[in-house]
């Protein structure tokens, strides 16, 4: 038994080892290949990296829950954009506009409710129809994006409230607010998944749904709650990002779901459910952001970044497969 515990620790540690490798590589390569004078590992650069990781990271926490639960959510990118529109546009509504700065909390609340509603819709459809979550949320991805375009056509939606920008750009204790929000989310989601009955049941459902049903776990409601949670987190991510920028394009958030799933899988969460770690997902997000930022730092273009990350994803999963099962015991295909 000891061996397996060690193996699990080694697996969870792998992503952090990878991050260290990236830091060393870009730290050294940056010295020779960078266009700028600043070092890649400079504290300012690292804090910026964390801040830029927050929007994807917050949603990735939700994706981890949903995937542990044995489902998936492809609609998060569209939800992200939709919540931004609701938040920014609602502040110009006749009912909120006269409130001045007091409109901000209401706008945030509306955005969060929108996210939760989208999650609720996904969850209820997955539960009640029994259609595969991949298909349901693929449909939702198209549908929610449709709502985004219906709102303002191809035009960006913007509303600049300087107080909101100030709040979003604030840095209590010297730490930018998005990082703090991300940190709180990590703590809360970790607690939910590891300390509450809901979280443990989510693992059980993803691991063996039939066993969970037989044991009397209310599988459907648990799944719905997890979709509501990811919807909430997508909205929260949207708030932390758009409160600062104040402008959303109808194409924003596209492909987010794929970056997020990539990060979650890199962190070791099983696509089929039952296994996954919140902390390792954070590692996955940081690894991807480091890769994107690092490659950019040494002068690679976006196309190159995508190629590298795609290759790494497949390589990592191949390694994981080789390490998990003894090659010789597997049948040839």
């Amino acid at each position, binding site marked *: *038994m000891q061996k*397996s*515990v060690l193996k*699990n620790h080694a697996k969870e540690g792998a992503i952090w080892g990878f991050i260290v490798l990236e830091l060393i590589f870009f730290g050294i390569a940056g010295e020779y290949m960078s266009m700028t004078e600043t070092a890649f590992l400079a504290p300012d650069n690292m804090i910026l990296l964390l801040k830029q990781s927050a929007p994807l990271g917050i949603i990735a926490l939700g994706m981890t829950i949903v995937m542990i639960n044995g489902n998936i959510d492809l609609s998060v990118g569209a939800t992200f954009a939709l919540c931004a529109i609701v938040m920014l546009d609602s502040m110009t509504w006749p009912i909120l506009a006269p409130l001045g700065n007091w409109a901000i909390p209401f706008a945030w609340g509306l955005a969060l409710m929108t996210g939760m509603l989208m999650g609720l819709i996904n969850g209820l459809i997955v539960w009640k129809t029994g259609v595969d979550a991949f298909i349901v949320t693929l449909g939702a991805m198209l549908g929610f994006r449709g709502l985004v375009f219906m709102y303002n056509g191809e035009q960006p939606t913007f509303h600049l409230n300087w107080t909101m920008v100030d709040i979003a750009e604030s840095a209590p204790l010297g730490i930018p607010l998005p990082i703090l929000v991300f940190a709180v989310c990590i703590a809360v989601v970790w607690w939910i998944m590891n*300390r*509450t*009955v*809901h979280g*443990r*049941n989510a*693992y*059980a459902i993803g*691991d*063996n749904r*039939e*066993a*969970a*049903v*037989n*044991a*009397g*776990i209310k599988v459907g409601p648990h799944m719905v709650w997890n979709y509501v949670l990811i919807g909430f987190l997508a909205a929260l991510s949207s708030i932390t990002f758009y409160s600062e920028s104040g402008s959303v394009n109808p194409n924003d958030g596209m492909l987010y779901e794929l970056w997020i799933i990539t990060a979650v899988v890199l962190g070791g969460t*099983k696509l089929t459910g*039952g*296994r996954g770690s919140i902390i390792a997902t954070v590692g996955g997000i940081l690894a991807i952001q480091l890769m994107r930022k690092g490659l950019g730092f040494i002068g690679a273009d976006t196309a190159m970044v995508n190629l590298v990350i795609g290759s790494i994803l497949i390589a990592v999963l191949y390694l994981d497969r080789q390490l998990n099962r003894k090659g*010789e*015991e597997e*049948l*040839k295909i």
Partner: protein
Amino acid sequence: MSTEQIPALRLENIVKTFPGVRALDGVSFTVMPGEVHALMGENGAGKSTLMKVLGGIHQPNEGQIFIEEQPTVMNSPLDAKAKGVVFIHQELSLADELPVAENVYLGELPRKSFGRVDWSKLHADTDEILKRLNVGFGPKDLVGDLSIANKQMVEIARALTVEAKAVIFDEPTASLTDAEKSVLFEVIEDLKSRGVGIVYISHRMEEIFRISDRVSVLRDGQYRGTLETADTNEDEVTQLMIGRSLDLSRNVQHGELGAVALEVRNLSCGNLYQDISFQVREGEVVGFYGLVGAGRTEIAETLFGLRDPTAGTILLDGKETTIHSPIDAIEAGISLVPEDRKGQGLVLGMNCRDNMTLPQVDDMTAGSFVSDGAEVAIFDQYRDKLEIKTPGWKQLVGNLSGGNQQKIVIGKWLSMHPRVLIVDEPTRGIDVGSKSEIHKLIRELAGQGYAVIVISSEMPEVLHVSDRIIAMFHGRITRTFTSDEVTEDNLVQAISGITPEQGAA
């Protein structure tokens, strides 16, 4: 029945109909406290439907369930458990990635405020149950790391989280070794002594006669009677089950043996098996017997090109042959009827004909299209030869009975004209009546000159069909028996790694 004892569980006149089927037709059944009551019947006799009614998955159309003579309605599996009826499923119903404790209390994790899990209570309670079962693992061990037997113990531990009045064991020994079975039987004895009523479902006669007090038999959804185990015998039970008696005696008919068709010399494959040598002649059935994990299936997979051996040679008709893929194997004349018929042997959503002609569909083309006529001709030929019961070739294989499905797989390979036919677990999940047909078929095939290898975990089956029996233990051949010298005792010794007394044979 004494007046002071009331039944732990009583089913009265249960009727359950599904559209077009009367799955249960007035079944009554009583389990006394401290009794092991075996429930037998062929597949499709209604055992599983009865258990689903009892477990609250189905509601009966008529009839009543009584627990300690109180009329009871079971609303769900959890409800049944709360009312003291606990199931131990054949298919392990566990979450592998979770620790033992969370599996034992699956769905019933103890709670603290804010929906938190009460870990200390969870671990303490689990620990107590595990101590009672006297197992070698703890509450925090990962279930995925446990052996099948220990996983079974986790299932049993679940049953002990409530004060069970009745525990239902559904084919609990399907994947257990003999030593593990003994532990299971001790647990059953322990439950018995605590006054729990036990329903024991199994196909294995020797187990039924070892542990049960009474046997009840279902056939075609109807209750066929209850026998006192002590006063009955296998024949009587079988007759109740299938309405006729069955021949499961030792194989005595030796066919004419021809030349050596297949010879294996010093074959090894990593840790899976080592130093395997044997011969199979034309017209001979060689049985491979051993525990799950002894390496039998892996040898078959190697011969069929699904694994590469790490050492050793395979000779066909005396010529050394290398087999790297199933295509090589088929060309060399080796066919494998795999262990998991539905998973590995058939495409369930395809019809009978297409399944049967699957390996040779490339050769049956007219122009670039598959020739329907040629396919149907092959299907008809083997349907008649193997007496496959199907309304027609268009029937989906998934709708056939297990025995007929197995015949389709066998027909598929016979149509490729193999020299060597390997059959892995020929009758797994096939009901008793069809079993003897498959056995007869295997003997007939040998009679026609095929060299046949039969791998089986069922001793009566191996004894019944084989000319020679190769016993395996931990990846090695421990002994080879001719059908004259084999006895149940020396066979059990050989597969348990007990060295036979020198000169015994």
